[in-house]
């Protein structure tokens, strides 16, 4: 069932993908142009999608219950991280993110706070200061940078 559904989605996608490709115009003498390669891909992809609909594998064992909650939680945490890392700065975004992840992996309150603090400050100093890989510093990072150098 999952395979059939995936096959249908892929087929629909390939139709859209191929249709969009027809709109790519170009004026140069390039023999291929921007639309031929995507058009070829869309045909092959569409055929593979139909193959999956026709001959699906046995149903995979989807994860349910607590692990699923954890997985969704992880993804949401990461999406949240992408949005807060620049305004909050690396240190506090990382603190919250790693504490949440540690909590989901079964760490107690003290341990998750320690993990969060260790990873956020440790990696900020390691990457931003020592490796000179600029990370969004935020207020705490600025203070730390001035205090260290």
């Amino acid at each position, binding site marked *: 069932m999952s395979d059939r559904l995936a096959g249908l989605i892929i087929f629909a996608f390939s139709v859209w993908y191929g249709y969009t490709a027809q709109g790519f115009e170009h004026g140069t003498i390039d023999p291929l142009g921007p639309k031929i390669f995507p058009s070829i891909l869309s045909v092959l992809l569409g055929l593979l999608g139909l193959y999956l609909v026709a001959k699906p594998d046995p149903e995979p064992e989807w994860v349910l219950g607590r692990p699923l909650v954890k997985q969704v939680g992880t993804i949401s945490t990461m999406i949240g991280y992408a949005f807060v890392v620049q305004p909050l700065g690396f240190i506090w975004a990382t603190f919250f993110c790693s504490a949440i992840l540690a909590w989901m992996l079964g760490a107690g309150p003290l341990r998750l706070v320690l993990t969060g603090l260790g990873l956020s400050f440790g990696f900020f100093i390691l990457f931003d200061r020592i*490796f000179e890989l600029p990370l969004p510093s935020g207020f705490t990072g600025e203070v730390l940078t001035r205090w260290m150098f």
Partner: protein
Amino acid sequence: MDVLNSLAYGFSVAITPTNLLMALVGSFFGTIVGALPGIGPSLGVTILIPIAFSLGLSPVSTLILLSSVYYGSMYGGRISSILLNIPGDEPALMTCLDGYPMARKGLAADALAVATLSSFIGGTLATIGLTVFAPFLVQFAIYFGPAEYLALYVLALSTIGGLTGINPAKTLLSAMLGLVIATVGIDASTSVPRYTFGIFKLYDGVNFIVAMVGLFAICEFLVYLETSHKAARIIPVGRMTMSWRELCSWPASLRGSLLGFIAGVLPGAGASLGSYIAYVFEKRLSDRNGTFGYGDPRGVAAPEAGNNAAAGGALIPMLTLGVPGSGTTAVLLAMLISLNITPGPLLFERQPDLVWGLIASLYIANVMLLVLNLPLVGIFTKILSTPPWVLMPMVIIVCFAGVYSINHSAFDILLMTGFGAFGYILRKMGVSLVPMVLGVLLGGPIEMNLRRALSIGSGDWTILISKPLPVILYLTAFLLLAVAFVLDFRRAGKESAPAPNTLTI
């Protein structure tokens, strides 16, 4: 003698303090990466790339660092296989079969030593193979034109699933999706933006390191969350009791090395297959008293020699043809491309320091790994007891920092997370992610070579099959695919279970 001269030159490059340090750091880090379950070689190499870039390392040093991690992870995988009965990474799966029973009999130290020595034999022989065969293949590959390259890429993409038992349609699908992702962004030769949805950040296309970190690291973490992990009981190492002759297991190691090396050179096979066929072959050949599976040292030596030899062998097509044969070599290739270095036959002419420096470093790294893994194995067993609630967040944060620093963009973190979730769903459905990574990586070169070939032929498509070599390559791809589909149909006729784990190495 030409080869010896080149090798001597390579050693002069490799013996500089920076490069020696890179080999040592890489070997050490690689062993840890290999030993920790849930962190595989492709992930270990991927997360180091942004860091290596930002440190401003030269291409030679970067390549040495990452290849040492690759070699090291093949050594490290055995530690958790033997002491925990959990493979540290996929190629170490076969080592569990006899390594863990040995450890339970109180022979943990011996099992570790057998595995280290056979790894050293496999790794060194494969490096010798690389030294001898790579220049040979380069002379052949120098005559490759766009049509030949196109055929070679098609072969690589269609055989990457190989004969792994994964549904071949899904392997092809994975590769196609990778190629589709590669078409996002401004078209290189006509400057037409494709599939960008007007999102400015997508004009440069999807950075393949972002895609790789998502598909390998984030996806791996989601798989890790499926089961609740308790602190595993590590068997204490103890002392060695066996003689050196027994520890070396020469015949098993040599046979394992040869099989592994061949598996490594073939596209789409890689280290997992190397250790698998080495074990199965050794068992068929030497298991006279039914000792295999109950702690036979030869059952440890063969797969360990096999996976290390395969790792070395897999570097041959990557360096000489620019076609990666496995997930980890795809990552190494991506790294080279990001440094504006095009692997392939010309690499040997234009940048001999890079190629021969790397090869010489691999000899050095193997010796370092032998030393690190024999007397200092205790350090790694300590690291193995790091609790997961420190380790896994640490990996994720390194991914965040690394991906962020490529373009200084939080959008890439979002993209990486998306790839992780997408990859996870595909992986659950038995789709291997390695072909997708290859597709993302090779999409650009494939389209470019198609264009060049058509330009040469003034738009005539028959130029693609006008010479014998491309025809042979297409026929090989077609045959291998046909065999894979036939096998799949036979399997579906009997009882069929979805592929338990997709190859990621």
